[in-house]
Structures are given as structure tokens and as C-alpha cells.
């Protein structure tokens, strides 16, 4: 491996690079959102611009100017709608929704407009739109900021849903999302921004709809989403001490989804555990469990098992928030249970 390939950067930087490279390659790619420049409203391109609530888009205003990097008022519905209209008119907008929990304000524009336009208009519309957003619990942001919500968008025909679990994936998947000709919801877990990873310089893409085999194993298949991949890896280390070899699969994109890789894994392991940071009902965990139970029927030596959040909003208090998020301990003990069954 060359020096260059071993470059270690944060998730925030990886995402920034993906956007920057795509904007350099294509002048129709633009960025819109609340505080994405930050302070830009005071006039032009000044040093102190915050680059979004989490600093992810820092420097893009300076490089691309205020026509292509637009701070907005707090008007989620109109921002999303303008993004849909601009993409119907040939731009490739990247909209920063700030937090996933705010997408409900724009839900009509996403659901009734962006998702349906191509089909409803008989193929006339092309909607190359990316909605980026932070998500997830663990920061004490509590009830109205910490939702994942990707299960809801996965339900909706016409949308694509991407949930990177590492900076390296984030860069390649975001570039692919920006180049995609469909509305893509891109979920950035708050834990991703500070995570360090080996990320190649220069532009690359990972195809939407291809899972990643995170770790090979033969005893149990663990399908883990977003930050749960890190927890699954930790759990696998503990399980290895017991002699249990866990295979970990990260779907990376939930819509489209690569069930085939998961089925192949189950055929090898005979056991399936799904770990997801969302409430359980009508969720991606249920979706995967239902489909794999059906597709791998007869290969499963134990019932599929799911570790999810409880059916409750996200609490503030630290002991409650910890109990809310699936833990390494839960993964270890559930996996042990399945393997001994």
C-alpha cells in the first residue's frame, strides 16, 4: 500500500472531500442548507464561516462561491422542494437537512414530490437530489434530534437510502449518491464525523446496492447498520474469545438493498442477528429479518434475532440513553444465545 492510500482522516473530512470533488467535477452540483456556509449572510466568503452545524462543509463557500453554496432560512419544506424543482430543472443539488429529525417538516416534498415524480410523469423527470443529514443517539440531543428515521424512507418507492458506517464508505457512497440520478437520503451518524479511517485521496465511488463484508466468520451472520457496525466488530472480538466466529455484513444502502450477500452468509452460518439503532416496528431490522427468513428458509438453525432500540422516543438522561442504544453486551449475549440454541 502506498503512502497516499494510508491517509487517515475523519468522517467529517471524508464527506467534505466527496462533496468538494463532485462540485469540482460538475458545475451543476450545488449545496443548499441552513448554516452550511454559516455567517455567509454577513457578506461573502469569510474565514469564520462555520460550514454547517457540524463543520462538515467548511471551506466550500470559499471555493465555490455563494451561488453554489447557499445558506438558507429555516424553511425545511421549501428548501427540500426547491431542491426537487432544481433537480427536475437539471441541477444536482445536495441539500443539508441538518438532522434527520427535521426531515418530517419536508416530508411532503420528499414523499409526494421527489419520490413520485419520475414514475407519475411516465419517466419524464430525473431527480438527481441528495438529502444529507446527521442522525443518531448518544450525544444527549434527546427526543427531537436523535432519530434515525431511515426505515421510513426505505418504505418509500422512488427514494434511495444510504447509511455509511465508516469514513471510507462515507466518501465513496456520497460520491455515488451525488452522481446518482435519483433522490438519495444520505444518513450520517453523529458518531461518524469524528471517526478516523483510511480514506483514499481523489475521487472514488461505491455502488449503491452492494453490501460490504466487514469481517468473515462461519458461526453467525451479524447484519449491522451504521454505527452498529463498530459495535458488532467489538462484540465479535469478545465472541471470538468464546470460539464463536461472527461474520459481519454492512448493507451500506438500505434501498436498494443487497439481500443476496446476506443470504449467502446465512447459508454458511445458519444464524442471523440484525443490529440496528431504530425502534423495532416496520423497521429495516424487521425488513431484513422478514426477507432473509423467507429467502434462507431451511438454512436457519435458529430463529432470526434482532437487537433494536425500544419502541420509545430517545430519552435525554445518560442511563436511559445508554439503555436505548443497542450495546456490545447485548450483541454478545444474543449471539451467544443463538449459537448455543
Amino acid at each position, binding site marked *: 500500500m502506498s503512502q497516499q492510500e494510508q491517509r487517515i482522516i475523519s468522517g467529517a473530512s471524508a464527506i467534505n472531500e466527496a462533496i468538494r470533488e463532485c462540485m469540482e467535477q460538475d458545475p*451543476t452540483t*450545488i449545496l443548499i442548507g441552513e448554516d452550511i456556509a454559516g455567517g455567509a449572510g454577513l457578506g461573502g466568503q469569510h474565514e469564520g464561516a462555520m460550514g454547517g452545524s457540524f463543520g462538515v462543509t467548511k471551506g466550500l463557500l470559499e471555493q465555490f462561491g455563494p*451561488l*453554489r453554496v*447557499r445558506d*438558507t*432560512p429555516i*424553511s425545511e*419544506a*421549501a*428548501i*427540500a*422542494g*426547491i*431542491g*426537487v*424543482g*432544481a*433537480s*427536475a*430543472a*437539471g*441541477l444536482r*443539488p445536495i441539500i443539508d437537512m441538518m438532522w434527520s429529525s427535521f426531515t418530517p417538516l419536508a416530508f*411532503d*416534498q420528499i414523499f*409526494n*414530490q421527489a419520490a413520485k*415524480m*419520475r*414514475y*407519475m*410523469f*411516465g*419517466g*419524464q*423527470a*430525473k*431527480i*438527481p437530489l441528495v438529502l444529507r443529514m446527521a442522525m443518531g443517539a448518544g450525544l444527549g440531543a434527546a427526543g427531537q434530534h436523535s432519530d434515525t428515521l431511515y426505515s421510513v424512507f426505505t418504505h418509500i*418507492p*422512488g427514494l*434511495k437510502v444510504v447509511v455509511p458506517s465508516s469514513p471510507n464508505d462515507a466518501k465513496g457512497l456520497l460520491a455515488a449518491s451525488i452522481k446518482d*440520478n*435519483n433522490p438519495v437520503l444520505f444518513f450520517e451518524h453523529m458518531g461518524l464525523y469524528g471517526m478516523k479511517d483510511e480514506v483514499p485521496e481523489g475521487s472514488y465511488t461505491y455502488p449503491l446496492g452492494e453490501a460490504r463484508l466487514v469481517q468473515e466468520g462461519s458461526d453467525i451472520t451479524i447484519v449491522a447498520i451504521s454505527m452498529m457496525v463498530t459495535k458488532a466488530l467489538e462484540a465479535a472480538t469478545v465472541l471470538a474469545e468464546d470460539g464463536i466466529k461472527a461474520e459481519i455484513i454492512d448493507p451500506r444502502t438500505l434501498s436498494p438493498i443487497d439481500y443476496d450477500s446476506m443470504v449467502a452468509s446465512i447459508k454458511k452460518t445458519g444464524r442471523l442477528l440484525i443490529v440496528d439503532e431504530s425502534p423495532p416496528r416496520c423497521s429495516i431490522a424487521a425488513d431484513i429479518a422478514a426477507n432473509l427468513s423467507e429467502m434462507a428458509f431451511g438454512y436457519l438453525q435458529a430463529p432470526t434475532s434482532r437487537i433494536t432500540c425500544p419502541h420509545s422516543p430517545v430519552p435525554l438522561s445518560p442511563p436511559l440513553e445508554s439503555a436505548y442504544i443497542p450495546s456490545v453486551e447485548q450483541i454478545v449475549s444474543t449471539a451467544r444465545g443463538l449459537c448455543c440454541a
Partner: protein
Amino acid sequence: MPTKAYLLEFYELMLKIRMFEERVTREFRKGDMPGFVHTYIGAEAVAAGICMQLDDHDYISSTHRGHGHCIAKGCSFRDMLAELYGKETGLCKGRGGSMHIADFDRGMLGANAIVGGGIALAAGGALAAQTRKSDRVAVSFFGDGACNQGILHETMNLASIWKLPLIFVCENNGWAESTPTEYSTSVSNIAERAHGYGFAGLTVDASDAEAVYEAANSAVQCARNGDGPTLIEAKIGRMVGHYLGDPEGYRPKELKVKARSKDPIPDLASKLIDSNALTEMGISNIKDRINTELDEAVSYAKDSPLPSGADVDIGVYSE
């Protein structure tokens, strides 16, 4: 002031819309047109007056009552009727129907069955134009009912601060389904709301084609010159029911009669006749031409193939 030739074209365009809608009304009653249909009867001067100022590169977004906007933007009767009948040859391959008719080649970004749903889409068209530094403009048509949807206000504010080349056109026919605008809306002239957003709001009488022309002309100029948005409120008499088949039990008959007494089409015809730009004979020639086109389009639409059920899940995503 528009030229006589311009007004003649204006008249013909209004007549095309009216006659299309009357024909649709008759055909719909036969029972073989699927879905819900809302006709544009009475509002013709608005679509015509605005869209005559636009070309194919300019964008419009429309409403559940979108046939008039389509015709004014240049869509053909054939493609439209095939769509209304749910045929594979329709503008949207029969997937959309009346409430979701669209023609992207003509910048018609779609009818919209969500009240207020199209407003931000037009603003997106305007944003694209501005980002590309082109002189295209965009028009968002919406009803008085949509005026109380939050997204109108969000979009007005955005259009104002960004000086988007956008024209907001409120088709105020005094009703949203069974709800009178005077009940639902806190101002009598919706155009007044524009002042809170820092741009001009004009109220015009949609039974007066020339008045619509004047407003449209100034708003489109303003947008094309980079001077930002305008809100045009066109007051329309609701000459028909909310949808085809609406028994209208909720509305006193007198109000409908009153609405019908002010009709932009015969009005403009009289003016054109008075100024010798048109004759009764001329009118009947135009009508014949339109009728022939309609007959042909209805046959075409009826004879066109339906989509195959096997294709139901095709076409959801782009490559």
C-alpha cells in the same frame, strides 16, 4: 398595450382551453375516463395571459386543475387526452392522469394533486435558471386554497431574499372545494401578503384578459431582468363545480350564476369584434378548427393502447 394580433392569439388560446375542458366534461360523463378531473373553465385568461409571456425554456408548476396550464404552455390535445384516458401514449404514459399531468419538454413541471405542492418546485426551476445565469423564469400557479399552506410563505421568503426569477400566480376563484375564501383566509386581497415579503403583489380581475396581460407582462419582465419575484392574484369567478361530478350542494346557486355572468372569453371576443380584429365568422372558423383537432385527439386517445399491468413496477428509478 398588447397588439391586436396578440389579443387575437390570446383569444384563441383561451378558447382552446375552454373548448378542451367542455369536451373533457362531456367525455368524462360517458364514464370511461378514470380518476378525478378538475376543469379550468373560467380561469382561461390566467394561464393564457401568463404563458404567452413564456417560452419552452421557462418553467411552470401547476395544480390539480392543470389542463389550462398545459395547453397554454403548448401541450397537444392528443398527448393530454391520451393521458387523461390513462393510455400508454399519454404525456405521462398513463401513469399520472389529470391530476399529475406534466410535460417536461415544455417546462411544465407537473400538475400537482397536493394543494400547494408545486410552489417550491417552480422556485427550484427559478433557482436553476439563476444558478446557470440564464434568463429563464419560472411561474408557480396555485389556488386561493393553497395560500394558507406554509410552503407558500417559506417560498415567498426564499424567492425574495434570493431575488429568484419567479412569478407567484394565485388563481383566486373564491372557493377551495366547499370552503369560501372569505371564511378561510385572513385578507380579502391575497396579493397584500406579498408586502410582508418585500415584493410587489398585484390583484387583477381574471375576467379582463387585458388586465391579466398587463400584470403578467410586468411580472415576467421583472423576473427576467433579475429584479426578483412578483405575486399576481387573479380573481376568478368559479363557473363550475370543484371537480367533474360535484353536486355543489354547499354553494347557493346564485353564486354560480353570478360567476358565469363575467366571462373573459365572450368579453374579449366582443372587444375584438368591435375593433374589427375578428368577425362572427372568424370565431366560428376558429371553433371549427379547434373542434376538429379535439375530435381527432379524442379518437386518438380512445384508440391508443392501455399500459400493460405487467409493467406496474417499471420506471420508478432513473438509470
